[in-house]
């Protein structure tokens, strides 16, 4: 019974995921083989790195800085561009029956539409709009996700052209996140992904007297962002009907169950790969099953949610 993995399989927007775990954008999703390796190790749905119109090398190093409870990153949206990126997705999807979310990033509606059209022609199963990257704000200003009007505009434009379900990935670094979530739903988003990185934050090396990150600031992820992710997911879950991918700080099975109780349908696991290693996905799957056994839940959807607020 415990090893009956079908108990934690989840249906998500018409596709079946073997496990509730999602590899979030920017983690291991650069190459087709990276996608495969993660899936082989127990991840249910794979998100590609956020793809842009042109290739981007990202920021110089250091692009990662650790602190107590998490890490900052300023990768700077490095990616091979939409063409090469989709080639990696196609290469993976050609051989594996595993749902893939194609994350795309742009700063104009036109570019979002062009990207979506390319995704339409790929083997990607869902398109995720990264409206919330905090690491390129020097380049592009406030993230789009800070404005519910812009979020709604982009989502509804993309919905007009997309042949596959559309996920809006939002930022916690805004006032009134719940309203932005309801705006995304009203504009037609099929699902939400909450949260992108927190902050941003900065760390200083007091010996070299420089910021540690090359780009000075970076987005926070890892265990310490979990409380913010849970709050964002629960508040959104209380207000919207569309499913939510709960992402942020999940590092073990108990965290994953918390995320499900907060209202998430799927659970993202990103930064935990660092301390947990590639075995973290299977570990979390097993821990969810253990929890289900302890309280007598047959399938993962039996795990109760908190009462809505």
């Amino acid at each position, binding site marked *: 019974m415990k090893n009956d993995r079908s108990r934690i399989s989840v249906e998500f927007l018409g596709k079946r995921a073997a496990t509730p775990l999602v590899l979030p954008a920017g*983690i291991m999703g*650069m190459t087709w083989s990276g996608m495969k390796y993660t899936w082989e190790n127990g991840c249910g749905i794979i998100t590609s790195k956020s793809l842009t119109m042109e290739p981007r090398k990202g920021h110089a*190093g250091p692009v990662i800085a650790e602190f107590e409870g998490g890490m900052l990153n300023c990768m700077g949206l490095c990616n091979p561009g939409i063409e090469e990126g989709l080639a990696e997705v196609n290469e993976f999807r050609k051989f594996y029956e595993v749902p893939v979310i194609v994350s795309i990033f742009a700063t104009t509606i036109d570019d979002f539409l062009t990207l979506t059209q390319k995704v339409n022609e790929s083997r990607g199963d869902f398109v995720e709009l990264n409206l919330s990257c905090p690491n390129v704000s020097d380049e592009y200003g406030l993230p789009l996700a800070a404005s519910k009007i812009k979020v709604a505009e982009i989502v509804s434009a993309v919905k007009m052209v997309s042949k596959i379900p559309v996920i809006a990935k939002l930022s916690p670094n805004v006032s009134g996140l719940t309203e932005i979530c309801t705006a995304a739903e009203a504009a037609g988003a099929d699902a939400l992904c909450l949260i992108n990185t927190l902050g941003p934050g900065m760390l200083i090396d007091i010996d070299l007297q420089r910021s*540690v990150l090359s780009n000075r600031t970076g987005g926070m992820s890892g265990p310490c962002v979990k409380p913010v992710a849970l709050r964002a997911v629960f508040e959104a879950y209380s207000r919207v009907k569309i499913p939510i991918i709960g992402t942020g700080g999940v590092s073990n099975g108990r965290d994953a169950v918390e995320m499900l109780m907060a209202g998430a349908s799927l659970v993202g696991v990103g930064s935990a790969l660092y301390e947990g*290693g590639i075995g973290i996905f299977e570990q979390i799957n097993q821990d969810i099953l253990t929890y289900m056994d302890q309280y007598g839940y047959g399938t993962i959807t039996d795990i109760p949610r908190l009462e809505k607020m």
Partner: protein
Amino acid sequence: MLKRITLPVAEIVNENETIRTFYFEKKLGALPGQFIMLSDLVTGEKPFSISECESGYFGVTIKKLGTFTQALFEKKPGDLLSYRGAYGSSFSISGRNVLLVGGGYATPPLYYLSKELLKAGAELTVVNGARSKKELVFCERFSNLSLSYQRITDAGCLGRAGSSVDIAQVLLEENHYDMVYVSGPELMMRAMRNLLQNYPELNYEFLFERYMKCAIGICGNCTIDPLGIRLCVEGPVLARDKIVQLTEFGEYHRNAAGIKEYF
């Protein structure tokens, strides 16, 4: 996992015109084959293999190539640098009669490995190859160890002309080894792999380089096809069972944007 440490460069040794060893007085506790991410917090942050590692100090041996390594070459002893790590997989310390084959700036990590192998009681033969005599490094250090040491350059200025693979071929024919360690340019390593196909019973480990950003196994930039393993965590040292499966090896690698570049 170690956090970032900033400390003065203790000593800099010129190995030749373009290669220097930077020493730091700090107990690193790394294993042979592991690397650190080194940075000045101005120009960048890049991976370098540990070439020496004792209880009171460690060293990395660096070839001057682009912007970052050029900036490193401006540093004087006492200047501060910052590192994190050590990261990655390491060479197994195994085998009684061992062949080590190095090429260019990738040879020094084999020096640290050699010291550990000798401590474990192994017999070593080291082949150190480079394009020219000037480019050969760590010759004196290797000569001071009790092992059989062979130097080789493309031009033959040291008596022998050819590549380290050529020497390795002869050595493999004439001796019985139970382990081979290789660290060098990827095409040299590919030639070694091809050569070693003739010795199906012989175990070997290679040290790989791929473009690294996070070095902690999350960004996915350093995965290698078709396995998808991360060369910063499951690598940079891979053993024969993995190496024979690699389709990317010697064919292409991915750059900072994740775009394939062919060798």
